[in-house]
């Protein structure tokens, strides 16, 4: 009989979407195809467990790994990289089941550019006024680190990062590399701002060069495409990118697969289906073979 399809070797990055929705969770029939949980993506390489953001989607990830570890005394290590600390990217953390297990070890990485320390922010959301269990009462070992080195090595996986310019309060993009394969996670950034008349040509070119260099030839780019072109003008300054701008930049950077992420909370599944069709037409018109899709909860890809 066949082998299990799960990739447990250290040659492949297994990417799973646990939460794809932006801003606030949106449960309901109209959003169940693409999902209503806020951002969380896991990347597994053998026994190395990397998590990108801790939106409400992290709860289901926690339940799954908790189910797998029942009866095992082995230490489970998780590495959580936060793009930033807005609610939708951290609010699932108190519900991450492994935090209540003594054999779990979680390292949280985030920007050091915060005016307040990262640990204070995470502790704040578990203050007694907001949550019954404090951060210091968790059974798991928690290590919160503001990123100090340019590159973080986790076994064979190399993680590098850059601060992003266009999001209120700032945000970080991450690139995970393994054996020449690259996953880029670049959510919560308003790339449309690059084309504002207030941005000088020189500044625009510098930003673009930096962005393209970071995402270039990514095997998968998971990126913020919250708004349509028509919606964007009313949401300018909110920190999110419009879909056509994202697609065109991904094409320019010769990305292999573009997973549009951080879906607008008002966006229904049927509307995403329509946007997907239009996006595919845009790519086809430009003669590209880039794979385009809207990230969907419960989907796992092997990179």
């Amino acid at each position, binding site marked *: *009989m066949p082998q299990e*399809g799960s990739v447990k070797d250290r040659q492949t990055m297994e990417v799973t979407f646990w939460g794809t929705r932006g801003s606030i969770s949106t449960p309901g029939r109209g959003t169940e195809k693409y999902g209503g949980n806020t951002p969380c993506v896991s990347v597994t390489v053998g026994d190395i467990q990397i998590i990108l953001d801790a939106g409400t989607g992290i709860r289901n990830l926690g339940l799954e790994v908790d189910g797998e570890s029942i009866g095992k005394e082995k230490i489970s290590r998780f590495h959580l990289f936060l793009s930033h600390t807005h609610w939708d990217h951290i609010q699932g953390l108190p519900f991450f089941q492994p935090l209540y297990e003594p054999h779990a070890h979680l390292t949280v990485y985030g920007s050091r550019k915060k005016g307040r320390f990262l640990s204070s922010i995470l502790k704040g959301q578990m203050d007694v006024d907001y949550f019954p269990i404090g951060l210091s009462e968790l059974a798991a070992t928690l290590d919160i680190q503001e990123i100090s080195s340019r590159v973080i090595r986790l076994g064979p996986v190399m993680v590098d990062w850059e601060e992003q310019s266009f999001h209120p309060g700032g945000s970080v993009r991450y690139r995970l590399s393994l054996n020449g394969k690259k996953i880029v996670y670049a959510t919560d950034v308003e790339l449309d701002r690059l084309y504002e008349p207030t941005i000088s040509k020189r500044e625009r070119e510098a930003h673009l060069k930096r962005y393209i260099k970071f995402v270039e030839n990514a095997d998968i780019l998971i990126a913020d495409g919250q708004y349509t072109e028509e919606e964007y003008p009313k949401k300018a300054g909110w920190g999110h990118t419009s879909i056509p701008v994202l697609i065109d930049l991904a094409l320019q950077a010769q990305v292999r697969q573009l997973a549009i992420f951080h879906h607008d909370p008002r966006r229904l599944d049927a509307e995403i289906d329509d946007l997907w069709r239009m996006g595919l037409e845009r790519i086809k018109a430009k003669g590209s073979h880039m794979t385009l899709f809207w990230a969907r909860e*419960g989907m796992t890809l092997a990179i």
Partner: protein
Amino acid sequence: MALKEQISASDPLSSTILISEKPVVEELHSKGSAVFKVYPGSSREKTVRITLPETIIGRAGECHFRLDVPSVSRFHARVFARGHEYVIEDLGSTNGTFVNGVQVLRCVLRHSDQIQLGQAKIYFFEERACHRKAV
């Protein structure tokens, strides 16, 4: 857009095969059930009800759901129940498992998803559409 139109619009390879939503929906009776509608390339379409907790799909005779198509691996994919959902998982196939055109290792299935295994195309239909219709 009607399901029939959606399928023909999104799938030029099966544009000669039109299926109606009504007969598919009417087949679905029991709570939690789902069916596959299969277009295995050259042979005729067929409907397969998912009844087992795990269904192995492939070219081999031992498979629960056999697809006699050369581009389908002997043990190509499995579909299993997880909670109230069905999940498809690639079993290391040669030509991959695609859901709505995206190559996946594993994917929770949703109503009217198009699955491609080699040249074979399968549509997944959840039972809940029946409830919608009945109301």
